[in-house]
């Protein structure tokens, strides 16, 4: 009899790179026979056979930002691109979770910043996908963003994982809106509850700190739509720091930004303002975490697979098992 723990079979692992986070969809060491049969089961149930791969999340590059909180402009972003291009295990794609650019009301300047973003991101040797942040799309309803990148929400499948890009900025407010919710429900309807789903968006879909505008007003409706699905990972940005939150079947991870950091919302006082962490010229990337790569795992910092079922963590960014109990019937 093949005995294996399906909960250990397929998972997303993440490790802080400073350049956002690298997630790995991986199968642990199992007997090939058991692994093969279970993959075949998933192929029948989900329509595509999941195969191991990794991807990277970048967030909040804010191209065009010029202020004391980070006088280095795009340096962290460019460094992150170089870092990903140098990974010995090439990720399949990079997801950007919004605020690609810093907005400008000078004629033509925001469009120039979009072009600069595309130029830098275009140096990635792997494909990338984007969702807008409020600095990209809230002032003009997403017009400029769509011209540069296409639709602000969409979905696609990759190696058995369903990716959903959600726009919670272009209405001007922290909201997804009724039309997008309807689209989401229709998009999800074709999947079985076991389907591995990765949602990526800009703002948190839950009330992290509403008085800092760290919420999505109709995020509860998004989570209700996702609730029947057993393997949901939500990646977001906006808060310029790592954060992990589990609610129902979904685990939410925020990535660090590639510009200044923000303080810990839970450690800050109730009435504390949301102010960027001060820039330290002696440690210019400290809040972006680049130095943590070598501190954490110098041998193979790019992938660190930890079994979430056991509630173990890498210590830097959370890890989400994306396949829990399957139904073999």
């Amino acid at each position, binding site marked *: 009899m093949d005995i294996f723990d399906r909960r250990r079979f397929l998972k997303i692992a993440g490790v802080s790179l400073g350049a956002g986070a690298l997630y790995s969809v991986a199968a642990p060491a199992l007997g090939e026979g058991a692994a093969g049969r279970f993959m075949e089961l998933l192929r029948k149930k989900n329509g595509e056979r999941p195969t191991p791969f990794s991807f990277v999340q970048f967030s909040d590059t804010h191209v065009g930002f010029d202020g004391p909180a980070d006088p280095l402009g795009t340096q962290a972003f460019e460094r992150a691109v170089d870092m990903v291009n140098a990974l010995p295990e090439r990720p399949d794609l990079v997801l950007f979770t919004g605020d690609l650019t810093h907005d*400008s009301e000078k004629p033509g300047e925001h469009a120039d910043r979009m072009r600069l973003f595309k130029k830098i991101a275009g140096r990635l040797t792997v494909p990338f996908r984007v969702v807008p942040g409020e600095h990209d799309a809230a002032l003009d309803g997403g017009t400029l963003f769509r011209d540069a990148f296409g639709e602000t929400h969409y979905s696609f499948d990759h190696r058995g994982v369903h990716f959903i890009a959600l726009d919670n900025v272009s209405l001007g407010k922290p909201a997804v809106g009724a039309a997008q919710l309807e689209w989401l429900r229709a998009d999800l309807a074709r999947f079985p509850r076991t389907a591995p789903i990765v949602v990526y968006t800009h703002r948190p879909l839950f*009330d992290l700190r509403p008085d*800092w505008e760290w919420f999505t007003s109709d995020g509860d409706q998004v989570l209700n739509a996702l609730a029947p699905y057993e393997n949901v990972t939500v990646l977001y940005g906006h808060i310029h720091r790592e954060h992990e939150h589990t609610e129902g079947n979904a685990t939410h991870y925020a990535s660090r930004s590639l510009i200044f950091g923000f303080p810990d919302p839970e450690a800050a006082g109730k*009435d504390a303002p*949301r102010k960027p962490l001060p820039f330290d010229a002696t440690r210019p990337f400290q809040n972006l975490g680049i130095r943590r790569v070598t501190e954490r795992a110098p041998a193979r910092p790019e992938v660190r697979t930890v079994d979430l079922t056991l509630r173990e963590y890498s210590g830097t960014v959370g890890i989400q098992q994306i396949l829990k109990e399957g139904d073999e019937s």
Partner: protein
Amino acid sequence: MKTLRRLTLGAALAASLATLGPAAPASARDEQPRVVAIHAKRFAFEPKEIHLAKGEPVTLAVTSEDVTHGFFSRQFHVDEDLAPGKTVSIPLTPAEPGTYTVICDHYCGSGHGGMKMVIVVE
């Protein structure tokens, strides 16, 4: 429910008619909520702080003077859009003393993140 609503509306209408005379009773005048005017303009609310009494019904009359702003407080369950030039009336009866932050949650430009005000309930 409908009957109750009609009765309530009827009572309100009667109370309203009672205040139309030249010498309306003082008690009827006192029932009108105090109106607190607030102005929104990139990137600040004016005033930045208001003080309300616990249990006192007030109407916040909020007007945007330039672009669309938001007026959001999770604690007060208030989430309003403020279109330019229009005054939005927000009824409010604070139940608990405390300091409450109201933010603009409609992105209005690069100073948007600091656009907020405080309601102090005493």
